[in-house]
């Protein structure tokens, strides 16, 4: 998966480099510039941060576990399938396509909770 991401990133960079000249080539392109909005939540000290994240519909949210203990992501109302157990530095992603408020928690430590608010996409981020 990492490989694929790297390959895709360098392909886009190469294409842009060809169009805009060599100056842009070494830039690392953030995911949004590929028209695939992304956002991250880190798990640190048994806490999701940010605890409440607001994103546009179509955004891929990635949780990354920074703790020495595994955590697991589960939707409080089954809006998505639970992640596998995330060991240290493991990540889990889900793309939120439908606007709404999503409560989630750690299924290993259920006192750990977080919220994702998905707003209708507008402008260039709008889903087809």
């Amino acid at each position, binding site marked *: 998966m990492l490989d694929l991401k790297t390959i895709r990133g360098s392909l886009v960079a190469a294409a842009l480099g060809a169009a805009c000249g060599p100056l842009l080539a070494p830039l690392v392109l953030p995911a949004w510039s590929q028209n695939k909005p992304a956002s991250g939540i880190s798990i640190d000290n048994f806490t999701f941060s940010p605890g409440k994240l607001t994103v546009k519909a179509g955004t891929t949210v990635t949780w990354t576990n920074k703790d020495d203990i595994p955590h697991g992501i589960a939707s409080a109302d089954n809006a998505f399938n639970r992640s596998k157990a995330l060991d240290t530095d493991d990540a889990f992603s889900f793309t939120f396509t439908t606007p709404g408020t999503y409560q989630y928690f750690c299924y*290993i430590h259920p*006192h750990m909770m977080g919220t994702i608010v998905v707003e209708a996409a507008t402008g260039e981020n709008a889903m087809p």
Partner: protein
Amino acid sequence: MSASDRDDGSLSRRKILECMTWVGTGILWSVAGGVPRSLGIIDEAVAKEAGGLKFLQISDSHIGFDFKTPYPNAVGTLSECVGKIKALPTKPAFMIHTGDISHLSLAAQFDDADKVIGETRLDVHYVPGEHDFVDADRKLFLERYGRGSKGAGWYSFDAGGVHFIGLVNVYDLKAGGLGNLGHEQLEWLEADVKGRSASTPIVLFAHVPLWTVYPNWGWGTDDGAQALSYLKRFGSVTVLNGHIHQVMQKVEGNVTFHTARSTAFPQPAPGSAPSPGPMKVPAEKLRSMLGIANVTYQQNQERLAIIDTPLQA
């Protein structure tokens, strides 16, 4: 607890202070050798006498946990505990394992645990910890250890005049909740103890403490009080838990609550660290914070004697 509660500094601070006060008055800490002060003298005397039912508790072996220093490896420290068990002068009747056998519910982790624990040549009665139910189908634990159990793995048995009940409070955890037994298991428990003589000593064991130790860290069971209400009429109830990787003991009427050390890594005292993550202790101190518990029951004794033995005093 909601995310917004957590963000409110003053609220969480107040909660912590309340809990700290409660810790100071409600929980008796173990002293040297792990013998709780309040019961120490009686317990040591009882445990040293011959006879009575002797069994062991081990907990939280977390096979697969492998986090740099100071933790050598979870298999290694479990092996050391097994060495202690094999060296006991009196062979215990059996052992209970109060969960988190594995770190990530992988078949290889259960295999490694079984191999090491098998060297004790003791019957082992297991209950699962939350780390034993993280495989996608939540079936490996039950396939291996759940034979003859009900629901998510609960069961009871009798030994040496004591009625033992293994409960599961880690199966279907709810957002924002603590440990959870659930309606079906509570009904089973009520029926299981109905009709038993009130003089039968009861040993209840489960992974997450059935008493509220520290809710901010999820150290408690939402419907634990409900479970204990079915046992009010019994003269002697001993509750053995794991999960918090440290020795704590509390006596409330006829009920003695006790948590065991982990065989893998210690966790901080409630509220003493930003989170309940593994405690980083100097390597030379680590073995004083890992260990096993020996339990002795003698007829006509009100309480079971529990001796916590660290890997190194």
